[in-house]
């Protein structure tokens, strides 16, 4: 579509060195960005007058266990004035951290706290990075693929004669 091509053209003109891969599917534009360049790229997306992505809709992560880098941090941004959307993906490994985009969009504050709580990804320069959903002394990160799925073992006929394993 017309708007995707123009966004793509501007991205390729201005920040070619940060973009790893671009894909487009049924009107949705996805840009994979290098981890170290995420804040300049987001600042460019917000400040450029043609793009003006001033609203962060979502910031989440995906655990792709078995792939290096393990996590994908996904940013969804929307331009209120121009009515177009973009998705940014950043590949982060277990021991790596990604810089916080709260300096660009301040709505990223609680999203990044949730990603830290659920996946354990560290965000540098975050004003207040601590757990938001789980209790403060909880150990583990629940949405990782190697975190146990059920809390109490489900009782079937093959294990009904012993007490259930909990957590």
């Amino acid at each position, binding site marked *: 579509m017309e708007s995707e091509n123009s966004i793509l053209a501007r991205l390729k003109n201005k920040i070619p060195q940060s973009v790893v891969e671009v894909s487009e599917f049924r009107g949705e534009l996805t840009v994979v960005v290098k981890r170290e360049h995420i804040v300049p790229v987001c600042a460019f997306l917000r400040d450029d007058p043609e793009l003006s992505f001033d609203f962060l809709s979502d910031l989440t992560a995906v655990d792709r266990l078995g792939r290096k880098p393990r996590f994908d941090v996904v940013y969804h941004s929307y331009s209120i004035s121009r009515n177009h959307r973009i998705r940014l993906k950043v590949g982060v490994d277990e021991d790596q951290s990604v810089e916080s985009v709260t300096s660009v969009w301040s709505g990223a504050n609680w999203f990044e706290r949730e990603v830290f709580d659920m996946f354990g990804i560290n965000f540098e320069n975050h004003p207040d990075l601590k757990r938001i*959903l*789980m*209790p403060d002394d*909880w150990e583990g990160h*629940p949405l990782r693929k190697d*975190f146990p*799925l*059920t*809390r*109490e073992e*489900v009782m079937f006929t093959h294990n009904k004669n012993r007490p259930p394993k*909990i957590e």
Partner: protein
Amino acid sequence: MGLEEHIPRGILLTTMDKVVNWSRKSSTWPMTFGLACCAIEMMAAAAGRFDLARFGMEVYRASPRQADLMIVAGRVSNKMAPVVRMLYEQMADPKWVIAMGACASTGGVFNNYAVIQGVDKIVPVDIYVPGCPPRPEQLIEGIMKLHAKMQKESLRKS
């Protein structure tokens, strides 16, 4: 009432037991403890069609100090668990707990990191009412079973 402390050991009180238990079961004041969807059914049980007022229970006290019965209606998450325990400990004796619904009884459909698998892991429960959510008639049946349990209690310290 604090009657138990004033009765010396070795005395059998049958009529006194009956009167005290009858007065306790006829005016059990529940605490407003609707946590999730079961709260709607608890409200329906207290409303016009399935009246709880005929059992003396129309007075839902928000303060735990004035309540006798804690109907845990809904799922208890990890963050809410210390609050439930604190409110239970703030209630004065004699007190009873009804676990209403599948989530309060055993964790219900939520067998995961966020929900406590049964509120009896935190507070002692007298009656479990299963259902998702239990109909108001089922909750009233649970309350009537609790009344039968109250009737069998004894003032004598054993």
